């Protein structure tokens, strides 16, 4: 049985995906999204600590140097993550799409060249391709938007990824337990996660979903708000709390510990109260390509 793409369908080829994956990996490493740049200026405007202000100034200078010299913002090329949103009436070979993303990642690594930061977890061997078992990480979602495919690339740095925490709290710990866990995670991570950060918090779900929610939260653009009203309230409270700790940029003290705390929630079991934290460092890099019948638009 064959399925024929009806008229009005957007067809995206593996070659187009491969080119986009390559371009997005390199672009993400070089140009910070506008929301993050604005986040820096917001923090700089309110920072009261002298050393912290000079640290922020160096970070802001680095963004300009990277753009001027067309160089990478940070040496850490990260673990490549690709989020794929496939709208309705899109025709794409899913298996070929995954292969194309890996090929694009490997080509970016070899052709730019980029440091391959990816090794086998047991032998520690580096194939110098930025690829390996289950890497690039590819998350595929299906959305309502018609004739649109969006590919978002996130090079996830390890300094902040090592600041990941999961706790299977119990219902009796309540939301107070969740809040305490997040504050203590921020304290434990200290300067190691390259603050100012976006602190991503997952609440609910299963253990793996909870951790994934924390990643989604950590990599969401600044200025976006949790769709769940209770989650949104938690974002405001925790952002204020974390920025009252005095950890500061690079953990050297100051007010600017986090650009924001982002929260994502999922329903959970009557016996469970899971909470997870995933951290995005100040080099909050991402790039995206949107495929529509009009063509491909590259942005953040």
């Amino acid at each position, binding site marked *: 049985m064959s399925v024929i793409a009806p008229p009005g369908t957007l067809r995206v080829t593996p070659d187009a995906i491969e080119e986009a994956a390559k371009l997005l990996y390199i672009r993400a490493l070089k140009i910070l999204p506008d929301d993050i740049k604005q986040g820096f200026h917001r923090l700089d405007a309110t920072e009261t600590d002298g050393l912290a202000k000079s640290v922020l100034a160096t970070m802001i200078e680095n963004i300009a140097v990277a753009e001027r010299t067309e*160089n990478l913002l940070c040496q850490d090329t990260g673990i490549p993550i690709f989020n794929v949103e496939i709208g309705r009436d899109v025709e794409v070979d899913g298996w070929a799409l995954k292969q194309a993303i890996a090929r694009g990642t490997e080509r970016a690594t070899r052709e730019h060249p*980029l440091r391959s930061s990816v090794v086998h977890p047991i032998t520690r061997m580096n194939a110098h391709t930025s690829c390996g078992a289950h890497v690039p990480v590819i998350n595929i979602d299906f959305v309502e938007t018609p004739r649109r495919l969006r590919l978002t690339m996130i090079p996830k740095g390890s300094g902040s990824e090592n600041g990941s925490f999961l706790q299977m709290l119990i219902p009796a710990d309540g939301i107070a337990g969740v809040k*305490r866990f997040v504050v203590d995670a921020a304290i434990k991570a200290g300067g190691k996660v390259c603050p100012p950060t976006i602190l991503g918090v997952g609440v609910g779900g299963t253990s793996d979903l909870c951790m994934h929610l924390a990643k989604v939260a950590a990599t969401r653009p600044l200025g976006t708000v949790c769709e769940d009203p209770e989650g949104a309230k938690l974002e405001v409270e925790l952002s204020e709390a974390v920025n009252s700790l005095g950890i500061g940029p690079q953990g050297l003290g100051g007010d600017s510990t986090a650009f924001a705390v982002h929260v994502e929630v999922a329903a959970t079991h009557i016996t469970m109260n899971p909470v997870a934290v995933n951290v995005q460092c100040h080099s909050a890099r991402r790039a995206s390509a949107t495929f529509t019948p009009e063509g491909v638009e590259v942005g953040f």
Partner: protein
Amino acid sequence: MAHHILHMPCTEADIRKLRVGDTVTLQDTLFGIRDATQIHMFDRGRRTRFDLNGHAVIHTAPNVRKVDPSGTNQAGYEAVCIGTTTSDRMERFTRPLMEREGVRIIIGKGGLREDSARAFQELGGCYLAVIGGAAALETTWITAIKDVDMDDLNPESLWRFAIRDFGPLIVGMDAHGGSLYRDVQSSVEARRAAVLAKLGAG
């Protein structure tokens, strides 16, 4: 808060002059070192042909481009982007780096712990903080990759860089037991109870 310019290699007396909060600019030579480099050197007994005595090492694994060895690129590598990684993972290598190799300065981000603070105090060493994630800027302070050892560990090889005006770096831990990281951590711990109380999570 004084500013110091150090030409590498340096002496113990040079290091003892530095105090937490001072700033430092390094000149001439810098070695790049990382997790795998130190695991091989100190857990597996490998020796480097480089003389690290009196030198500074930076926690890094650079992005490089292979080129024909010539002129400024004698090692066959050209710098693409050189930055700094989180130091905490390499905490247990501070003392062996100093005792066995004679290293005086460790450069990194995020700081080191109390064992390192003691090693710096006893042996005359310090930790200089570079701004993590500011690698495009840091790369402009490196003039060439002069040599590379243990390159089977690439990118976690032992790199010898030529540097010019590398800094300013912040003295995060000094040779007198001082640690900016310890100070910040204590002040954060002191604020924790009030922050939790405000959240209704005390």
